[in-house]
């Protein structure tokens, strides 16, 4: 393990973590405003990637990068208006179930329209190649582009929420919806706006991640559970908590994938050799890279045992 490896892994981890934050930010905003855990959030991410892929062939990558999230945001807003608002009176469980049903439908429709295999969503020429090379390890431009977009988005959302009139109304509707309604604001429409905005953010993440990683029907499931982990670990409804947890999980997972260390290899230099005959060999010889997929969930369990309200969460009812 050398400095180059650490720096590059850290960069990769941060870019993945920022991507996770683009997703979990919308999820957290929707959750803290409407009390709805949007199960279909990762489906909007997937739709963003597929829309951008299809639009790219017609209008080019850069316009598609703007149109695709807007289209998905519109779908999200329509879903909120005609579906979610209807089941609102049946309670939070029904709301969760309808988004669960939507995630199911989106997956099937995507497979129907684009097929079950991955689609060739390629990087535009401007993002191909490497940004810089450090001790023979290359850092691709596309990942730095993800970081750039995520940071711009973070700043934009922050400015929107704290510096504009509509942001103030959103914040007020978050704390005290009845009072905001009494002051003459259309709170259901604010909810629709937030839901559509969250969906658009997810779609933007999908549009820029779809060509850096892979655009395939399983891409929603691959991040879907992770962003739930991020939201719980960060503290339900805490935007800053989601930011910390996104980076943490992104970095931990990126490092873990690259580490071929197991209990057995650690014991080797100490003179203890672990052979297949020993009880628990399967566990002892397991490398950290093999454990990478379960690390976020282990983290979730540990957080719940030792800090049930999440890293930066406050006590909620």
């Amino acid at each position, binding site marked *: 393990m050398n400095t180059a490896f650490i720096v590059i892994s850290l960069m990769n981890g941060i870019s993945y973590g920022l991507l996770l934050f683009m997703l979990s930010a919308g999820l957290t905003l929707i959750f803290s405003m409407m009390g709805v855990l949007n199960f279909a959030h990762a489906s909007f991410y997937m739709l963003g990637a597929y829309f951008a892929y299809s639009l790219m062939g017609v209008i080019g990558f850069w316009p598609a990068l703007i149109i695709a999230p807007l289209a998905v945001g519109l779908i999200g807003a329509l879903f909120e208006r005609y579906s979610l608002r209807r089941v609102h009176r049946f309670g939070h469980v029904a709301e969760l179930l309808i988004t669960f049903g939507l995630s199911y439908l989106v997956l099937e429709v995507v497979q129907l329209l684009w097929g079950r295999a991955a689609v060739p969503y390629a990087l535009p020429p401007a993002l191909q190649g490497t940004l810089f090379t450090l001790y023979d390890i290359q850092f691709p431009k596309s990942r730095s582009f993800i970081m750039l977009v995520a940071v711009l988005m973070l700043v934009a959302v922050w400015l929107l929420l704290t510096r504009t009139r509509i942001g103030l109304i959103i914040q007020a509707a978050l704390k005290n919806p009845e009072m905001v309604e009494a002051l003459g604001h259309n709170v259901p429409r604010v909810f629709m706006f937030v839901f559509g905005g969250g969906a658009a953010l997810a779609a933007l993440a999908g549009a820029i991640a779809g060509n850096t990683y892979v655009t395939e029907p399983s891409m929603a499931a691959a991040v879907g559970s992770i962003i739930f982990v991020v939201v719980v670990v960060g503290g339900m409804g805490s935007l800053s908590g989601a930011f910390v947890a996104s980076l943490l999980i992104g970095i931990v997972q990126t490092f873990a994938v690259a580490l071929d260390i197991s209990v057995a290899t650690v014991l080797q230099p100490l003179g203890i050799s672990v052979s297949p005959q020993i009880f628990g060999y399967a566990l002892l010889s397991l490398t950290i890279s093999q454990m990478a997929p379960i690390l976020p969930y282990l983290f979730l369990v540990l957080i*719940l045992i030792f800090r049930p309200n999440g890293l930066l969460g406050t006590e909620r009812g």
Partner: protein
Amino acid sequence: MGFSWSEIERSFWGRAIIWLAFAAGLGIAPLLFRSGIAMTILSQAGYVIIICLSYNILFGQGGMLSFGHAVYTGFGALIAMHAMRMAGDSGGWSVPLPLIPLVGGLAGGFMAVLFGYVTTKKSGITFAMITLGLGELVAAMSLMFPGFFGGEAGVKADRVYGEPLFGFDFGPQIQVYYLIAIYCVVCTALMYAFTCTPLGRLLNATRDNPERVEFIGYSTQRVRYLAFIVSGFFAGIGGGLAAINFEIINAGDSLSIAQSGSFLLFTFLGGASFFVGPIIGGIMLVLASVLLSDLTSAWLLYIGLFFVLMVMYVPGGVASLIATNVAVVHSGKASRLIVPYIGLIVASVAALCGLSLLIEMTYHTQFETAKGPVMRFLGATIDTHQSAIWIAAVLYTALVGAFLRFACLRFMSGWEKIQEEMDAAQAIEVRP
């Protein structure tokens, strides 16, 4: 009113007759439906009913939306499979086959003791997310330890081992079916009995008003935990029966989140607020996965569509649909709904035809290009390369959709009026 379901349900003899009819129905079923596919459906339905009922202890009775129920059914099935393998290997301890489901039950219960401690600390939405996380954890782990979980090939075992018990060796499917049927009746009865115990009642109270339960001195967390363990035990029994039925278990599939999701989906579709709901849901699950999947490859899409529509319009599931309609018939007002009902059904069937034609045509062009452009739909031959057919299908679906919307609105206004009248009548009856 003389005769009503609720009275039958309340009286001792009424209950006894319902349970006997349930047991007799399961006993006679294989004599009525003799084909091989019927046997498959009946056997699967037997244990899926147990699993859906066990899920409903959490979901319907405890208000705990779990996304990880497959962990407990899957572990039940895995441990049962390993127990069968050890018994088949001769020497050492050997559990007689009829008791294998109990081994699965203990395994499921043990996992629930372990995981339930973490998950039941929270309720509501957080609970749902934790169960999802743990479900993913176990699903991912199943790929890390191929020795125990069987890896890609799965774990296999032979259910015929040891001395035949009373002349049964459980080789033929019919003997396995009756074993499943007996477990199904006993477990259903036990889970019904559970709803009548103080713990079962407290569980309902914890779902409806946790603060008050805490206030009268019970720990809601403990109530949820105990109910979670009971649910895990019955889920494990269902998994153990599945292991006996298939003699092979693929941990990747049976522990997956998709599997948990299907238990949730169908328990909801059956009706979570009624005890019989999950039984209906379990039967629907098996019918859908065996018959519907044979009929169309886009079956998951139809199920998803049906689920979304049910959440929006019938949140009580099929069981509540039956119950409210029975109530309307009893009120003597059903005759007013006959015309709207006919309109609704005709419009739905017509809309379904249009929609499924579009779906099937898309499916054909997407996945079955090797078979050529011609496909069959409801007995008709359709050339998917003709754009006229596509335009006609879209226009027809849009037209029928508008008709369905009209029929729906008409039905809803009639339905809501009758519900209001019935509520008013009830209010008068209650007044002394």
